[in-house]
């Protein structure tokens, strides 16, 4: 049915947009972990 194609097209677009935002949020979490590690290492050096 043509509606299935319409649903698929819009579904992929939303998945792409939200997927990219999700990827960036995961990246933020990862960088926060690295930041914590860096702070610990600086404290150890002191």
């Amino acid at each position, binding site marked *: 049915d*043509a*509606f299935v*194609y*319409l649903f*698929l*097209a*819009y579904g*992929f*677009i939303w998945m*792409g*947009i939200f997927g*990219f*935002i999700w990827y*960036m949020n995961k*990246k*933020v979490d990862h*960088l926060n972990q*690295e*930041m914590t590690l*860096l702070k610990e*290492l*600086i404290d150890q*050096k002191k």
Partner: protein
Amino acid sequence: MRSKIDKILLIILLIAFSVSIYLIFQWVPQIKASNPAEQIAQRIFYFHVPSAWLGFLAFFVVFCASIAYLATRDRKYELISVASAEIGVLFISLVLITGPIWAKPVWGIWWTWDVRLTSSLILWLIYVAFLMLRRYLPDGSKRANLSAVVGIIGFIDVPIVYYSIRWWETQHPKAVMASSEGSLAAPMFFAFMFSLATFTLLYVYLIRKRYQLLTLEDTLNKQFKEMEIL
């Protein structure tokens, strides 16, 4: 301050996308077409074309940032070009997915090797190569220079994709905007322009977020190197 602007942008985006969906599915009248499937699938147009526009805009920013990097050797421009290339690849991927989904009920086939489709695929491959080049080369001026050159040369394909439907006979529909050959009814034109503006705002939001992340990542890497851990 930065995160406040991002939050405001996100709220505006959510409202704009909600209005855009309402316009596309409720407000815009159905097109007159002999094939009933075409009438329904035509609504893919309102997100398919703005996705392509966003891809072109992103690659134009890569082009400008790459020139700026080669002229100034400022790391900032390198990071802007990477952030923009990632967004461009994402949206050209969406164009290459939604295009065949629209083509199947209208043309009866998913894909044909016509100039518009093939040049779009080549554009996607060029910028995937740009991102792969950055992934596989070690960080440094060699990587930055090479990727800047790819970012500049790769942009040549953007006008080819845009003008391909004017320069050659293609199965892909002719331009309905910015040409004397076609026109859109007023409600369709309004919904399309609204969607285009929404996608442009989405680009602003995504590039801000991605650039901030890349800058943070870069700063962290530098600090780790200073600590002589890496």
